[in-house]
């Protein structure tokens, strides 16, 4: 099976400091679901930044969609990024855009016409329960609502990889479950999903999901043979 992401001995260093990520080698396959866990400061967000091409690593090799992502010319990055959906930990909604416009943003960037995008965006608004708040700006939304908008924006373009940083951190358990079901549904359609979370209970909710555990910038299983959660031992950790 061809991989969607391959990390080979990847290291990331900010400035002249110590390495934030060290010797990461793993492979992500299409249609797989991964949970990424680890203590605060373990490097989860940095690893996600490498995955959604916000940073280039300091060393090592990364292949995405079968191509070398490190030597990729800058003008080809947008094409790759359009294949990746991102849910940011701090949501990063555009403050002066409405809920509708925030969700429609990736489609507009991809050049989808207004006529074509109206239906999917309206459907997504209904799915996250924010149809009534379609015209509201982020400042008018609660933390949980903002998070749902951020998730809707990330998945609206049916990305090949979905990267989510603590996507259920600000929503109630019921909504967290619904969002996870959305991720699982996307996953069934072939999207590779990587969810960074502190909430180890979520690991039990997605059948067949694999776990990547980061510890001080290193994968706890450096061979990359990711294990199937949940296991009592992991839950206790």
């Amino acid at each position, binding site marked *: 099976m061809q991989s969607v992401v391959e990390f080979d001995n990847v290291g990331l260093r900010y400035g002249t400091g110590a390495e934030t990520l060290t010797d990461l080698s793993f492979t992500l396959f299409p249609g797989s679901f991964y949970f990424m866990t680890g203590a605060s400061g373990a490097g989860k967000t940095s690893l996600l930044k490498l995955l*959604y091409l916000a940073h280039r690593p300091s060393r090592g090799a990364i292949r995405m969609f079968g191509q070398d992502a490190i030597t990729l010319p800058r003008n080809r990055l947008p094409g790759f990024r359009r294949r990746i959906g991102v849910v940011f930990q701090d949501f*990063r909604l555009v403050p002066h855009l409405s809920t509708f416009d925030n969700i429609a943003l990736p489609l507009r*960037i991809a050049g989808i016409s207004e006529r074509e995008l109206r239906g999917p965006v309206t459907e997504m608004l209904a799915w996250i329960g924010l149809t009534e708040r379609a015209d509201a700006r982020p400042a008018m939304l609660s933390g949980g609502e903002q998070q749902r908008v951020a998730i809707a924006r990330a998945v609206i373009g049916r990305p090949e990889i979905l990267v989510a940083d603590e996507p259920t951190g600000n929503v109630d358990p019921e909504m967290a479950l619904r969002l996870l079901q959305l991720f699982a549904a996307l996953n069934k359609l072939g999207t590779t999903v990587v969810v960074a979370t502190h909430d180890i209970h979520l690991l039990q909710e997605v059948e067949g999901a694999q776990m990547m555990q980061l510890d001080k910038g290193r994968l706890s299983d450096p061979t990359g043979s990711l294990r199937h959660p949940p296991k009592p031992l992991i839950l206790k950790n």
Partner: protein
Amino acid sequence: MLLDFALPAHDRKLIPEGRLSGPMPWVIAIMLFLTLLVAAAGLTLADAAQKGGQDLSRQVTVQIIETDPVERANKRAEVTRYLRKFDGVTSVKPVSDTEVRKLLEPVLGVDILDADVPVPALVDIRLNQAPSASTLGSLRSSLRRVAPDVRLDPHSSWMAPFYRLMNVLLWLAGTVFLLLLVATSAVVILAVRSTLNTHRGTIEIMHLMGGTDVQAARLFQRRVALDALLGGFVGFCAAAFIMVTLGNQFAAAEPSLLSGVAFPLYGWVILALIPLAVTALAMLMARFTVISALKKML
């Protein structure tokens, strides 16, 4: 690139367009007001210099030095007749003694002129083109056969310092015009950088979702174009008001002092094009500024 100005309404919302709230349109209006006034002054000078220069460079005054008034009148008549037949002379106008005295009165005074001071006889001629040194030489030698003490004064020679001054002023106007354009470009670059910093978060999000540098640059180009057009319109109206007012003042002034000094009609077309050119320049500056700034992002 100018077609990038037309963006769909939803794209325009990505960078809020607070056109009248920011200082940018008003700074551009002031810069363009000054630019247009300098351009108008330059165009007026250039037009006056060209028209006056063409006219004066073809004029020559023939002086006949003769103390005897009767002989002087005869020679003037003879020179006039001769010049009317001379090839290349388009008009000949003998200046009467009364006119010559009028010209000299402010310099020599009435008393001296009344004391029968000999004054030269003058004949103004106009040639079909500015005379070269050889044309003047041949004219002079031909005239000396009729009047040996004849002198030729081409008007271009005594107007030369004045036209040199005009040229210096034209260069000065051109330099100030260019400096103002440079200053306007600098204002645009600073404003775009400031807006880029304000909306860095939005641009980063666009980038991470696969937005290209050109897509981001278009947002800024549009914003800058609207600011520049608004500023240009205000600047043009203000400059036009000043020019029309000044034009009326000039028209009311002593005509002989300012004859030939008027803003040419084609100048209005040039002035109207300047705000549009500045808008295009501003869009270009915005595009390069944004794209070069974004290249520093991954």
